[in-house]
């Protein structure tokens, strides 16, 4: 089972640290990442650049609208994501409970991945059927409409 762990941090904790403390903290995080990789729990993960670098795209007035931000008022922001392979929620919780950033005031939101394979298969079947129907209709477009769709 895949779990996506969203890591939230508060700037103030990191900012208060001395340079050495910051280095030690980073080391502890990297060591833990490597541990997860070795044990086969690590599927992937990325750290995010600060919120100041974020860009938001949404649809407004019929066209994509691009804005700077978002600059939410919350003190906590998403600092990184990690994708874990774990037997169940208890294992995922146990793994994330040992993450060094928790002691730095960080929090993790653990979300199970959603299995969309059935939806994807449905969608593929639907699109294939649409294509077949379109192919059936094409040769008849100049003549009289048929009483019933012809099957191939």
């Amino acid at each position, binding site marked *: 089972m895949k779990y996506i762990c969203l890591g939230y941090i508060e700037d103030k904790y990191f900012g208060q640290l001395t340079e050495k403390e910051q280095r030690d903290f980073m080391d502890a995080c990297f060591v833990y990442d490597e541990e997860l990789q070795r044990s086969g729990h690590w599927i992937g993960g990325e750290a995010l650049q600060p919120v100041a670098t974020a860009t938001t795209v949404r649809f407004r007035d019929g066209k994509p609208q691009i804005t700077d931000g978002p600059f939410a008022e919350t003190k906590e922001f998403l600092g990184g994501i990690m994708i874990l392979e774990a037997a169940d*929620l*208890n294992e995922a919780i146990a793994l994330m409970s040992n993450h060094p950033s928790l002691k730095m005031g960080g929090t993790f939101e*653990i*979300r*199970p991945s959603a299995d969309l394979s059935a939806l994807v298969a449905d969608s593929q079947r639907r699109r294939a059927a649409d294509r077949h129907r379109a192919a059936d209709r094409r040769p008849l477009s100049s003549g009289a409409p048929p009483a019933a769709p012809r099957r191939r």
Partner: protein
Amino acid sequence: MLATLIRLLGDFDLAEDALHEAFRAAMEQWPKEGIPANARAWLVSTGRFKAIDRIRRQARLDTPLEAIEEPGSLAGDPARQEEESIQDDRLRLIFTCCHPALSPEARTAMTLREVCGLTTEEIARAYLMTPASLAQRIVRAKSKIREAKIPYEVPGPRELPERLHAVLQVVYLVFNEGYSASSGESVTRVDLSDEAIRLGRLLADLLPTAEVQGLLALMLLHESRRMARTDPHGDVILLEDQDRSRWHPDLIGEGLARVEAALRSGQSGPYTLQAAIAAVHAEAKTAEQTDWPQIVALYDRLLDLEPSPVIRLNRAVAVAMRDGPAAGLALIDRLGGEDDLSGYFWFFAAKADLYRRLGEAEAADAAYQRALELTRLEPERRYLQKRRNALREK
């Protein structure tokens, strides 16, 4: 049986339906063919087969044929199951229902429904909710268990203390909900205190740690006073004014034995210490004969584990009983400066009572007034008003 089927089938709803179908099959077959030697195993096996049938039928409807395979979790013959693993299944069920990833309300609802076997309607009535919104809560919890894959297992030794704490909290919440229910409605309410004590006994059988024994003892000792703690109008009677001949001797006996066992283990936590305090009260013939120094000492130990303003307030009241009202008042005044108890009506009620005992009627009256402004519960209001009136009549 439900606990075992949930383990075998890996799904609460599937297991509930399976058990239902197994009972229906038993009603048809047992009168004709006789009751099987191991009725429980028969029901579990039958339920399991009915569920597998259902999975296959559904699979045929929903997915292409090649996707059908026997789920791995269905392996093993449940008829061969040992008594020990039946107990394990019940523990698994309790820990899953009380998992901290579920909301506290959902834990209570799931425990009452899946472990105690109450119906949705009964739970809804007990918590003064509509059955629809309670059912919603249960559906959401089950879906989280399924989708986030909360495992059906007893936590390992590292997680156990923390997780057991969550379980005990659910049991104590259920107990208190039943214990503080007003008497007028108790007739129509499922007796939650009884359910909590039953759960406590089950846990004490399955996992007899000190705190499990301590919590059960605490509930038994509280329960022993149930008949004495309200008057015929449903008004509260304080411990010191209760008719102790109405306390239930059997519940006290069991409570005392369990609290002693918990204390002897040397692993006692907050529940055991609270039970020990209740035990000292239970052993006293009158309020005056209570071993107050012992109670103060137990509150001290409790404060070491769980520093809280409410416990400090209770300790101050015990000190007042040991050393006199002036000593208690001095402590309470200091508490008022350190902790924010300005919204807590018992703080002012306790203060008023100590002023009354010192003969300072005016100060007592003012404190009763503050307490009355803070309470919203009708029985508490009546109690305070009665006390205040008695003061004025003197």
